[in-house]
């Protein structure tokens, strides 16, 4: 049986990616005319060429975007919007109460239900319905978390001391919170142990409510809560949004070029959002497993190694992005500060993060969707082996790769539109994107490498 944790690891993506790749190389071989028929060997092209191709696609899309030099066209695409009927108060209250009921049921079943991950509704609700499905809806449809957030509903029922939120903390608590949440997710069997999952949920609830009681719900969810911040940022990418109290439709990603992040703390959050996905995949690769074994054999405690690699990786990601902003500043020959350019261009990274999120979770949502339905019918006495899709057709792997690619293409376009918004000279705008494009090419190659590495269970941690 497939466990939930196995499915939400990106390692599974590797198999499907290689299927899609072998189909591609089959086409390439047919074109060069040397070989008759498609080859089925999944390693038909060397990894370096695969990575180079991925990086090349991003570079080419930058060059293609640079041909769009009509400012009016760029603006028209981003200003396009249509009004939609706005849901009434009744709908919102019902949705809010339903979300609260789901949280209560998740906690109860987490403690009282069966102890195997894939038969427990709590695990399925959190990983399949919420993390896989709901999170995807925040960037594919619109950010509904501000309304649904059951923790906010709970907080609104509690009194608040309304202490002022310290401004110098800014978004840093949410950066730390995001790092901590993903750290717990990587290091503990959170997808196989419902009791542990329910406990983590209780801890999160207690911390959140303590925060809202101290500084007030608005300040807490606006600054310190990592989930609210992540969904708010993802919502900037989504086609549905609320403006002046009205629901409106826009093109996906259209709001990102106008999004100016508040400070370097916000930039750090966006970069961290991208980094945590990478780390989750990176520790499940062969080179990491052999490297980690060697280091632990040399006497370094395993948790320290994982923590060190995690924090160093996060800092490296941030420094790389910062360096790209500095390069952009030098190339564009401008008086604008590096910090300002970093704040302007960081939203362009969000489509990449969303693309990887979708690619990593699409398979598990499809495969475990029937499981969720079957277990939800009888949460306390679920079937002994609940149904799941036996396997996914090969084209799903193609869809996953397409999600990754589409994320990168939208990101390149957003960077292009942002540069046009920032600089009066269009050539200056093109030059300012050299840095961020270099970072995107590098990041594509790194992620594709992780995706092509076969899944190896991370050593020394309980999964």
């Amino acid at each position, binding site marked *: 049986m497939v466990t939930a944790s196995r499915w939400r690891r990106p390692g599974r993506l590797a198999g499907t990616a290689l299927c899609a790749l072998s189909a591609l*190389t089959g086409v*390439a*071989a047919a074109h*060069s005319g040397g070989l008759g028929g498609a080859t089925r060997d999944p390693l*038909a*092209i*060397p990894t370096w*060429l695969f990575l*180079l*191709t991925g990086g*090349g696609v991003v*570079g*080419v899309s930058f*060059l*293609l975007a*640079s*041909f769009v*030099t009509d*400012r009016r066209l760029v603006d028209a695409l981003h200003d396009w919007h249509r009004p939609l009927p706005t849901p009434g108060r009744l709908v919102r209250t019902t949705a809010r109460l339903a979300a609260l009921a789901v949280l209560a049921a998740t906690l109860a079943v987490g403690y009282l239900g069966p102890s195997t991950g894939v038969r427990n509704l709590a695990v399925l609700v959190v990983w399949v319905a919420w993390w896989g499905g709901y999170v995807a809806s925040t960037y594919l449809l619109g950010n509904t978390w501000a309304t649904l957030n059951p923790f906010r509903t709970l907080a609104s029922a509690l009194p608040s001391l309304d202490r002022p939120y310290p401004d110098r903390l800014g978004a840093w608590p949410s950066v730390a919170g995001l790092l901590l949440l993903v750290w717990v997710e990587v290091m503990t069997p959170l997808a196989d142990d419902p009791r542990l999952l329910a406990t983590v949920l209780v801890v999160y609830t207690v911390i959140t409510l303590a925060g809202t009681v101290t500084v007030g719900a608005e300040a807490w969810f606006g600054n310190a809560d990592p989930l609210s911040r992540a969904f708010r940022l993802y919502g900037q990418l989504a086609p549905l949004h609320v403006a002046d109290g009205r629901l409106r439709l826009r093109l996906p990603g259209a709001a990102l070029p106008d999004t*100016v992040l508040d400070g370097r703390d916000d930039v750090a959050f966006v970069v961290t959002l991208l980094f945590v996905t990478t780390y989750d995949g990176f520790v499940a690769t062969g080179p990491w497993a052999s490297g980690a074994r060697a280091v632990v054999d040399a006497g370094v405690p395993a948790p320290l190694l994982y923590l060190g690699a995690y924090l160093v990786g996060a800092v490296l990601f941030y420094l790389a992005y910062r360096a790209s902003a500095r390069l952009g500043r030098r190339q564009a*020959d*401008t*008086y*604008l*500060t590096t*910090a*300002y350019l970093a704040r302007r261009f960081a939203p362009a990274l969000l489509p990449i993060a969303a693309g990887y999120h979708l690619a990593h979770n699409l398979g598990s949502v499809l495969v475990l969707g029937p499981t969720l339905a079957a277990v939800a019918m009888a949460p306390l006495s679920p079937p002994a082996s609940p149904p799941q899709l036996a396997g996914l057709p090969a084209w799903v792997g193609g869809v996953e790769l397409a999600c990754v690619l589409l994320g990168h293409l939208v990101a390149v376009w957003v960077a292009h539109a942002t540069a046009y918004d*920032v*600089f*009066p*000279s*269009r*050539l*200056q705008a*093109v030059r300012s994107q050299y840095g961020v494009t270099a970072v995107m090419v590098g990041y594509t190659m790194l992620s594709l490498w992780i995706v092509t590495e076969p899944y190896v269970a991370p050593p020394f941690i309980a999964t």
Partner: protein
Amino acid sequence: MNPDRDADVPPDATPHVCERCGHPFTAESRLALHRGLAHTELTPEEREAFEAAREEEEADLRRFRLLALAALVALYFGFLMTYAVVT
């Protein structure tokens, strides 16, 4: 953008500062473009400077497009050859 916070002019530089919003630029032509794009109601001289800067920009863009096209062709054939040799 807030010129005080988001711009950093080195002490030895002579920036071309927009008299309407305080935004500093490294070249007169960029200031002229900025006026035409960000502000309305230009004086006839400013309008003329904007048109001139725009023409100059068009010429630069044409040159850049040629370079970008060359880069695209180089990438395309580079990959084609690499795939032909490797697979």
